[in-house]
């Protein structure tokens, strides 16, 4: 609860800063504030409490995921400094929206009532619609915002319908009550339909095949930093929320529902990876990569009771490497009108450090050892095989192989081609974010227990 209050307070403060014309201080202040919030959140670790009519529930799940989101937001805010250099008047709006988005995200993993969940996801979504369209003079950005908005609202309708049916079945929005009621023998079928609709709505947000079509277009059109936000923060938030929803509502994951998850997971991995192969736009490529990672993360739903820590680890590994990758992408594509792979030509020569970071990030996403991405996949596969889904793991393995194909396309471009032009200026924040992110990635790779044992 403290976290949520602190975050909203921080968001409001950001807006006040603008009023008092204190723009320069916004980003440092926000980062410090977020760090303080992080400390506050971490402080809650180990407690189990619920606040205000069980609207907000604090437990290890919410604390760890909230901390992850806060860390990601710190990175994203840090990246904002250079990214919004040309929009000095709007910086407070951008930062405030990001902070509020974080509050939505936190609400999504610590909700105790479906109302909080719904509001959280709407805050997150609306903030993202805005950020996507925020480059208001750029048609691509507009288009991306519009697409995301239309389809997101459409999906929201399904989520709302799902909540409605759950309510219809249970007569309550409180997850504890719902989960208690769901254990009783007499269970209206509406409940399952509701859960199903909720799940499908969330699958849309996570971008799982066949609900994934929006992701590449939106990622491509959105400003790069927003893409970073969507592909790291939004994705893991949605995934964690789906996980929490299904586990908290004590949804009976029947065999056929598991088969649906397996099929969706396979489809997501395969479609995401195969489609990514021929992409020239890096953001688009990472969108498809995100779709495939969503497929991977879906596997955790098969072992709901035991795989929270695996999901946390996977989400952390994936999003942190995503941050590192996007820090480099932002640097490279600054002042360019597209994010094509050609922009990365010769980065290994002109800027070996960032090239190395991007390489590390991509290797991590591809699942190469010592990077945390490898361990994430390892734990995931381990869990899934233990649950008896060997075929799924084999498909996942095949997909990991395919994914190397496009991750290496980018690495090849960096090291195998001659640079087009010299890049000037060394935005220190991009550097530090990139390096810190990759270091965190490697550290949790070398010591996975740091994250794994949190839950």
């Amino acid at each position, binding site marked *: 609860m403290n976290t949520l209050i602190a975050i909203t307070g921080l968001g409001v403060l950001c807006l006040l800063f603008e009023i008092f014309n204190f723009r320069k201080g916004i980003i440092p202040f926000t980062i410090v504030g977020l760090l303080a919030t992080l400390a506050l959140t971490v402080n809650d670790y180990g407690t189990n409490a619920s606040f205000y009519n069980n609207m907000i529930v604090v437990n290890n799940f919410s604390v760890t995921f909230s901390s992850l989101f806060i860390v990601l937001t710190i990175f994203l805010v840090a990246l904002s400094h250079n990214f919004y250099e040309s929009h000095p008047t709007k910086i407070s709006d951008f930062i405030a929206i990001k902070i509020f988005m974080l509050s939505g995200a936190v609400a999504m993993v610590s909700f105790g009532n479906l109302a909080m969940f719904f509001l959280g996801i709407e805050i997150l979504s609306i903030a993202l619609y805005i950020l996507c369209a925020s480059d208001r003079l750029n048609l691509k950005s507009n288009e991306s915002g519009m697409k995301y908005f239309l389809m997101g609202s459409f999906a929201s309708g399904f989520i709302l319908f799902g909540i409605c049916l759950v309510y219809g079945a249970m007569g309550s929005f409180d997850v504890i009550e719902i989960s208690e009621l769901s254990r009783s023998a007499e269970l209206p079928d509406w409940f399952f339909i509701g859960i199903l609709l909720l799940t499908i709505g969330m699958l849309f947000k996570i971008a799982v095949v066949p609900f994934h079509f929006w992701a590449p277009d939106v990622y491509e059109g959105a400003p790069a930093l927003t893409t970073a936000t969507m592909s790291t923060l939004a994705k893991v938030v949605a995934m964690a929320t789906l996980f929490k929803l299904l586990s908290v509502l004590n949804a009976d994951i029947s065999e056929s529902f598991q088969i649906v998850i397996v099929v969706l997971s396979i489809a997501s991995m395969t479609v995401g990876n195969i489609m990514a192969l021929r992409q020239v736009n890096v953001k688009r490529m990472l969108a498809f990569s995100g779709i495939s990672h969503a497929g991977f993360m879906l596997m955790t739903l098969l072992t709901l009771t035991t795989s929270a*820590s695996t999901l946390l680890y996977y989400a952390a590994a994936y999003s942190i490497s995503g941050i590192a990758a996007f820090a480099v992408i932002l640097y490279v594509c600054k002042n360019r009108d597209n994010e094509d792979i050609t922009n990365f030509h010769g980065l290994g020569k002109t800027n070996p450090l960032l090239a190395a970071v991007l390489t590390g990030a991509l290797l991590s996403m591809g*699942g190469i050892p010592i990077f945390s991405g490898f361990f994430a996949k390892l734990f995931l596969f381990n869990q899934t095989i233990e649950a008896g889904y060997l075929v799924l793991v084999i498909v996942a393995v095949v997909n990991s192989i395919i994914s190397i*194909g496009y991750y290496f396309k980018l690495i090849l471009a960096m090291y195998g081609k001659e640079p087009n032009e010299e890049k000037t200026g060394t935005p220190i924040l991009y550097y530090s974010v990139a390096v810190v992110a990759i270091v965190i990635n490697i550290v949790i790779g070398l010591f996975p227990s740091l994250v794994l044992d949190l839950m």
Partner: protein
Amino acid sequence: MDVSFILIILLIGAFATYFSGDKLAPKVALLFGLVSLGFSVYLLSLFNAGQNIDFISAWITKPSISFSLKADGLSLAMLLLNTALTPLIIFSAFGNEFRNAKNFYALILFMSFAMAGTFLAADGLLYYIFWELALIPIYFIALIWGNGDAEERKKAVVKFFIYTLAGSLFMLTAFIYLYGKAGSFLIEDLYKLELSSQEQLWIFLAFFLAYAIKIPIIPFHTWQAKVYQKAPTVGTMLLSGIMLKMGLYSVIRWQLPLAPSAAKEYMTIFIALGIAGVIYGSIVALRQKDLKKLLAYSSLAHVGLIAAGTYTLNLDGLRGAVLQMIAHGFVVVGLFFVAEIIYRRYETREISEMGGIRSQSPKFTSMFMILVLASVALPSTFNFIGEFTVLYSLSQIGIIWAILGGTTIILGAYYMLRMFQHVMLGETNAKLFKDVTTNETIVLVSIITFLLFFGIYPKPITDLITPSLENIITIINR
């Protein structure tokens, strides 16, 4: 003192090289290479004195993965192969100028680190991690410092990377499956597993895919020739000299003991694949125009024989395979270095553009000749010991295998001598060929000395590896 120090030395070496700057990097790398060699010899002496040099430490609790490094004779032999070849390979690069030399040499040491880890790891997952780690440096070495057309090189290198990774991911799956059964990745726990023959078959095949691609066994070899051709010679040496021995080592250490009944049941198929590699590789090597490609196919033929030896599942086969691995490691490094020496002077790898070198460079010719002879396993070279033992073990399985495998001594002689003839002999070449420099001589002479010495007196190596191989045979026959 335990084996973890060797890894630390190599890793520190990699970083030290990276931070020492382009000028100093080669020397620092060489220094660390030599130190690691010295240290591994010291470890060998400790091991022979009966001291425990294993290193075990917990790492990840859930799933339980431990940082466990164990050294038996086999591991030590492979470690020594690695640490002996690394400084040689580093030293062999002294004649070349590399852009960003610090990165280059650091990557070499890093690769050596990963390979040493692969040879020492006694925990399945740790082993897998090292196995994969070794892939990354060679990828960059080949990609950045390779030669030939950039586009083609990239294609070849990426194919190589994806292909080998593809194989090893199935191995990872197998490991995870085994973990599910054993609850531990530790090799001794995995050895204790009682698997049904169906399970064993799948495990065996999963491992086989990884190793067949890495080794490579036909028909999984398609990445090899291109990559050998395109990689810088140092990379080719690392690949052919040490890295593919990782695959063969792993067959002995992991694949056979983990799935012995599958190995026994389908033995002939895998021997046949190995032998097919021998014949196929030799025949393809006959008509290669590119020197490095020819050597690549010769490598294919030789490792085919080694692989066939490992799959015989008898002591001779394993012992011969290990001996041949070491011998082949040295000789192939030597031969690729020869190709590099020629390239330094003629800037070509096309055999047709060479010829008539002998009259200009007697020293070089002699050393090249000896390497060629070692490669065709002339008795009194180390290669003969290995090849003889492997062929002998094959003859125990069926004399026909020995005969088919033995064609290597005919075909091998054919393509190697043909190559030698077209590269070295004939009318004096119009282009000037300077005889070998001191640095080059040191590398070649060390290799040749090694091959000839152990060709006459292989006992130290045999004695080192035999107990551990006997142990593995016992496990296979459990």
